[in-house]
């Protein structure tokens, strides 16, 4: 089953916007509904769109299996390092030591209408980012392995 030109062009056009919206959900994870998992799933939906519309050989130039595995490992590593960084600051595991101390993450989230400053909540944006790229890598690797097992009929 080969997809038509309309489907392929729409997927190509829609792919970067889907990634940017997923990144928006990840980055605003501690302020708005959504977070690391939801944003990562939206980003993985963008890559799934590209994978559905094209054959496996067409898509390996843009979505590489090794890069996605590296994304998954880096996400887990970021999460673990952020968790253990509380120990080095003399606090318990996963303690939010960055929130009141640093210059960048000092402010608290305001009540009511606020400008939506991103440099709040200390360690939480870092954890959201780690979970986001981990979910993107994991789901895309699943889809890539499924797609690589299909023998496309020659047309």
């Amino acid at each position, binding site marked *: 089953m080969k997809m038509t030109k309309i489907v392929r062009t729409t997927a190509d056009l829609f792919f970067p916007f889907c990634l940017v919206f997923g990144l928006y959900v990840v980055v605003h994870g501690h302020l708005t*509904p959504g977070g690391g998992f939801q944003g990562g799933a*939206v980003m993985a939906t963008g890559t799934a769109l590209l994978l559905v519309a094209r054959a496996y050989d067409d898509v390996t130039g843009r979505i590489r299996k090794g890069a996605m595995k590296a994304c998954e490992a880096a996400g887990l590593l970021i999460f673990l390092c952020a968790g253990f960084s509380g120990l080095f600051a003399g606090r318990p595991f996963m303690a939010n030591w960055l929130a009141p101390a640093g210059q960048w993450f000092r402010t608290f989230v305001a009540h009511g209408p606020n400008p939506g400053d991103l440099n709040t909540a200390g360690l939480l944006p870092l954890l959201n980012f780690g979970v986001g790229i981990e979910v993107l890598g994991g789901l895309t690797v699943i*889809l890539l392995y499924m797609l690589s*097992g299909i023998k496309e009929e020659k047309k």
Partner: protein
Amino acid sequence: MTLFLLVQALVLLGLIVTAVLIISFKDLLAAAIAFAAFSLLLSLEFYLLQAPDVAIAEAGIGAGLTTAIFIIAIRGTQRHEEKT
């Protein structure tokens, strides 16, 4: 309030209609697309019940990734259901 109830009744009616469509289609690709519409309506219902977090997860996983997995599986097998 009546508008809210009306919209919710319409969404629930659409859920039932798409669920019946999913099991009645013989073309499996059409059934997968109907499943995507079902998930989209379900995420709209979650949003109406004031659970936007669940709504985003449902729209991403249900309408996006599950449909992609089904379509990849249909590409690997055959498109039409066998006649019994």
